[in-house]
């Protein structure tokens, strides 16, 4: 199984440093989620792990090898990447989209072998998209579209799956559906999953390992019980959270929360004058 870790990563855009001195070790066969406030560097870290963004310094190790020294196609056979809200060209069918997931295993022309077709059929089936194979991706609902993209990523047949906010823009039921699909892939095929998600309770419920980030540094990492504490959430999100146990899953959930710094009072007098 493939391992992924980082050593003293420093990441940024232009002159701006976003993440400093990051040492992250992704555990094999587990679901790891990265949580943190907007702009804390979650997506940036995921992009760097995915070699989509180059680090300023430091090293990402994939399978013990420095990732920037490994041919990109070889990486694509070990690690699949799904960016935030990807877009498919108009008219592309679900089947065609999923078939692109096979390209790291193909030669230049993209001709599908029988094995490729079997994998695509399997991906269609586990994502419940069988009946939509011939539909254009742009004609699907948000949840179906996201499943189509995940189907493409899993058709890549990699041990590692990196997903950036796979549940964003989906309603409650569809969010759960996606996460349960990922959980199933993790359990039944022991795929290692790294994802960024905003919903803390989902992160708590579905991950073996959570990484809480603030301003590009790891505040706390560990199991949900270790990370989902009022203290950590206070530092990471500046919220005063009430953590209880979910009666069904026995995982910690954030029942309710308040901002620590209150929203400044509206000064009515100023508005009137304005």
């Amino acid at each position: 199984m493939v391992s992924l870790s980082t050593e003293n990563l420093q990441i940024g855009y232009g002159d701006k440093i976003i993440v400093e001195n990051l040492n992250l070790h992704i555990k094999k066969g587990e679901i790891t989620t990265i949580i943190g406030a907007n702009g804390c560097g979650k997506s940036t870290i995921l992009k760097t792990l995915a070699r989509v963004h180059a680090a300023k310094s430091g090293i990402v190790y994939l399978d013990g090898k420095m990732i920037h020294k490994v041919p990109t196609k070889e990486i694509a056979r070990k690690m699949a990447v799904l960016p935030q809200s990807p877009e498919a060209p108009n008219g592309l069918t679900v089947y065609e989209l999923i078939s692109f997931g096979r390209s790291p295993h193909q030669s230049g022309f993209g001709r599908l072998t029988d094995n490729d077709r079997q994998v695509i059929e399997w991906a269609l089936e586990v994502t419940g998209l069988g009946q939509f194979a011939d539909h254009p991706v742009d004609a699907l609902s948000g949840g179906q579209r996201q499943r189509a993209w995940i189907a493409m990523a899993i058709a890549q047949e990699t041990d590692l799956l990196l997903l950036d906010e796979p549940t964003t823009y989906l309603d409650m039921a569809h969010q759960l559906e996606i996460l349960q699909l990922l959980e199933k892939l993790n359990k039944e095929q022991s795929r290692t999953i790294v994802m960024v998600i905003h919903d803390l309770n989902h992160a708590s419920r579905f991950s073996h390992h959570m990484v809480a980030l603030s301003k590009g540094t790891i505040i706390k990492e560990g199991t949900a019980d270790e990370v989902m504490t009022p203290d950590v959430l206070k530092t990471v999100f500046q919220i005063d959270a009430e953590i209880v146990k979910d009666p069904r899953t026995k995982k910690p959930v954030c029942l309710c929360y308040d901002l620590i710094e209150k929203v400044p009072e509206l000064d009515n007098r100023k508005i009137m004058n304005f």
Partner: protein
Amino acid sequence: MHQSKAKQKKFIVLISLLFILTIITFIISLNLGVVRIAPIDVFKTLMGQGTARDQLVLIDFRLPRMVLALLIGAGLAVSGAILQGVTKNELADPGILGINTGAGFMVILFIYFFQGSMNSVSTLGIFLMPLFALVGAVLAAFLIYLLAWKKGIDPVRLILVGIGVNSGFGAAIVIFQLKMNPQDFMQAAVWLSGDIWGTNWKFVAILAPLILLLIPFALYKAHILNIMNLGDQVATGLGIHVEKERRILLLAAVALAGFSVAAGGGIAFLGLVAPHIAKRLIGPKHQLFLPLTAVLGSFVLLLADTIGKNLLAPTQIPVGIVVAIFSAPYFIFLLMKAK
């Protein structure tokens, strides 16, 4: 999948239809012109049995021009299709990116500085002018790439820089045009609006292998173009060397446009319209979409050239103008029909 089989069938029907239309246009075009030649005489001449006059008109003037129209049409259309693919922008085409005006600028310089002194030295002129055009196209492309480069190429930035370079060259063209004598001005104006003028077999001999090599190359890259259409991040995740592939494909598109413009002048719009129509007909899969675009480009340009030659004969309308007149309304119609 039955869907992809159905698409393949549709593709074969469409491309056969276009082939037949092109052949019909080709035959009609052979008969028409300032000198009309009856079909039977056309046939005789092609078999080598015609009169000396028919031989001259048909074999030496009319045929090379038509073959050039087919080559240039395919070249511009595929160039536009590649540009639209790598920039992920449906508005990209050699015209908008400043490749046409770059070529135009060099041609204007050529006409301005040399034309007067080599009016009679026609053979040299005929081959120098396209060379200048090609240099201009490559220069423009290089400039755009250089200015758009910022630790990699961002497609949106590429297009914006292209539009900037385009208007820069456009302005420079006007400056030189205003200083020309009327005769040179006319020649420049005709060239800029797109005119297949190198009606010469030597020209075909140079252009044909280049274009007929570059189009299969684009086809060879069809799979990569498909994946690049999913965006840089997804493409990288799927193991594509995005930056490298984009550079190679841009180079191919520029070369195609450069060669085409060198022989056909600043034909605008074809590189935009042909891929659009083809995509609408067959979908975004480049394996099917690129060949259809090429054949469509050939057909449209041959048709436009035939119309331009004959509509107001003996006055010739530059082929670029005919393309624009006919395709612009159709293009707007397509856009209005889209959601």
